[in-house]
Each structure stands twice: as C-alpha cells, then as structure tokens.
C-alpha cells in the first residue's frame, strides 16, 4: 500500500508538471482540475476504436452507484504493449485515477488503473504479452 502511495504522489506531480497538448482534445472534453481517485467494479471493457473505454460502477457513501465511462487511447496502442482482454474483465474490483469530464463528470480520462487483487498498473508499457527486445 505504501508503494501505491508513492505511485499516486508521483503521478500527481507529473500530471501537474506536464502541459496539456491535445491529441484528441483533452482540454476540449476533460477538466484537468477535476482529478479523481476512485474505487469500483468494472462493468465493461470496450476494445473499440478510436479509443478503448473502461466502464466502472462506483458506489458513493450513500450507496448510490454511478457508472464511470473512462477513456483510454487506441486499443491498438494498448495491444502493442502486450495487453489484451484477459487482463481486465467485468467484475474486477479496481482502483483508478483520472480526470472528470467538463460537463458530464462521470465521463473521464483514465490516468491509471489497477486491480485491487494485485495492485499492478494496467495498460502501460510491458504487458504480459509484450514484445521481447529486438534481437541484434
């Protein structure tokens, strides 16, 4: 858990340190001041173009459930890092961070996500089926 704390601190500082340059219009849709860190249960992972999405049920303190729609990058990009449908499924309990939508807050941009069962960050470089280094 302590490692996770370090990770979250690092991510938060990096996010502040890096200016936004929209590829697909981050600034247009998402609010960099609305950073969220939530826990929930995955209801759907869509490996669709142009960007994949993870849908997560999040229960608030009053028991109200909101389904968050979190956008990633293209599924091809994630696939090339060695990730696939087996790595995150409906029913998985997760901790995730991201930025809420400017108007529809539960439509967010996903910054990091990990299953509570192993706390390993998903969808970055070096997935389980990642390519080996190119042979010389």
């Amino acid at each position, binding site marked *: 858990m302590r490692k996770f704390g370090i990770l979250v601190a690092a991510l938060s500082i990096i996010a502040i340190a890096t200016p*936004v340059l929209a590829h697909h219009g981050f600034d247009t849709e998402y609010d960099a001041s609305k950073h969220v860190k939530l826990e929930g249960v995955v209801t759907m992972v869509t490996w669709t173009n142009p960007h994949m999405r993870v849908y997560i049920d999040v229960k608030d303190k009053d028991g109200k459930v909101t389904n968050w729609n979190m956008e990633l990058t293209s599924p091809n990009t994630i696939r090339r890092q060695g990730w696939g449908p087996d790595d995150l499924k409906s029913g998985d309990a997760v901790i995730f961070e991201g930025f809420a939508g400017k108007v529809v807050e539960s439509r967010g941009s996903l910054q990091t996500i990990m299953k509570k069962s192993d706390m390993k960050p998903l969808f970055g470089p070096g997935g389980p089926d990642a390519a080996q280094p190119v042979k010389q």
Partner: protein
Amino acid sequence: MRKALVIAIAVAALATILQAQGRGGRGGRGNDNPGRGDGRETTNQAGVLTDNGGVRYINPGSPTVPEAEINSHPIPRMPDGHVDLTGPWVGGGSNGDIERDGGLKAGELPLQPWAKELRDKRLAKDEPYTSCLPMSVPRVNPYPWKFAYEYQSTGLTHIYVLHETGDAGAHRVVYMDGRPHPRNWVNNWWGHSIGRWEGDTLVIDTVGYNDKFWFDSRGTPHTEQLHTVERWTRTSWGRIENDFTLEDPGTLTRPVKLHFTGRLLRPDREGKADLMEFICLEDNEYGRAAQIEVGKGTDGRK
C-alpha cells in the same frame, strides 16, 4: 513519507526532462503523439505510462526500435534493387504543430496574415481528424504507417501509403509509372501524387489537394494551391527522414523546407511489425464529456 515524496519528485523531474527532450530536439517531429523511442515516451520508474506528449490518459504510444538498435541491420532492398522503405514507421510528419514538428522556430513559418489569423482562431474541438476525416500530407499521428510497393508485370507501378488511423480507411496512392499530374482534376483530400527515385530517395510530388484538412491540431491552414514535395530517405535500418518542401502561394509568403524523422515500429514478440485494424467511427464519442458539438474543421461551413 519523506522518502515517498523524494521518490515522487525524482520521478516527476525525470518525466519532465524526458518530455522536454522529446519536444525540443529530434531535428524533426516535435510532438507526440507519435514519436517513440526518441525520448518522448515518458514513463515513470514504476513502469506505468503517465504522459505522452502531455495527453493525460494512459497512452503508451506506438513502440519503436530503440536508438541503440537503429543500425543493427543493413538497410534492406527489394529484389529489383530499390531500397525497401516499407516500415512500418512511426512519425515522419507533423501532428501537434507543423512549425515546431518540422524543425522551425516559433514564428518562422511564413504564414500570410490571414492564414495566421485563421490558425489562431481555430478551436481544437473542430479539428477534422478528431471527426475521423483524413489527416493528409504531411501529417501523421502516433499510429504506425507504411509504404506498400505494388509490382506488376512492368515493374513498380504504384506505392501506397497506408496509415493505421486518421484517414477514415482511405489509402493514399503514389503513381510510380511515369504519368504526369492530370488536368481537370477534382481537388480532394490526398491530392494527386507522382513518385520517382533519385538514387535511394523516394521523391513524391503532390498537387490537387482540397483545403479541408489541417496540417496540425493547432489549425495551420492551406489553400488548394498547395504543392508538396516529400523526399524520403531511409538513413538507417531503424530511421527514415522526410525532407519536405511546402509551397502554397495562397497561404505562405514563400516556399519553406521542413524536416521530419520517422522510427521503425518495434516488432512484436513473434518478430512481426504490422498495421492493425482501425475503424475511427466505430465508437467515436469525442465531445460528449463536454456536451459540445464538434465542428469537423469546416470553419463555419457546417
């Protein structure tokens, strides 16, 4: 906790440095999205991707052959002796800002006043590419692309430029059979491209573009007088250079030369490097989080 903070600051500093390297140097492409392998992939020490050109979501970019392996193989050749430019490549054109990506300093792109004014008033939400319209020349985004040679009984007749995305499924044709540009052409998204070899450099001359696409997400415009000349040279196994001449008397006060660099896509675990399926319109929800209507870059002509 103090240790955690120190580590966090160190990681943040590293990421910022890496990003700065990626944006500045490279003598070519400055921006993101694509790039890769040239210092623009900013990951933290935990191995989690945190930022790729400033886009704040998980976006590890397209992996490219590392710099240390750029010369690890000879430059390949086709059976007929032509240099093999196939790729797939990542980068090699503009994306975020053609001026910066092409190696110019801020303000060096000789835009006429009206063009500069239009660029500055365009809104990111109206970028045609985000509505799945073609990026056209010289733009490439973070996703891989390749040259595909077509040989017929008469030899090399066509070269196709296939981009994994951003082109709504279109392919670009470069005629290699010696034909001239046509007369009475209907201007379109990719224009009319004729190619020739100058040694091992593929020279592509294109006219006949429409004025609907943007050179970059900044909104740099052009007119139908646009004329481009690309000079593609594979300078090593893992690198391709694009010496690019941009001519548009409707937009620029003079022709300008830009330079872009592409990197070879890293092979997968089976040793293959291929383009993948990409259907831009499949689930394009762009704009909904802000409940805005995207404009398709039409500058008011919706």
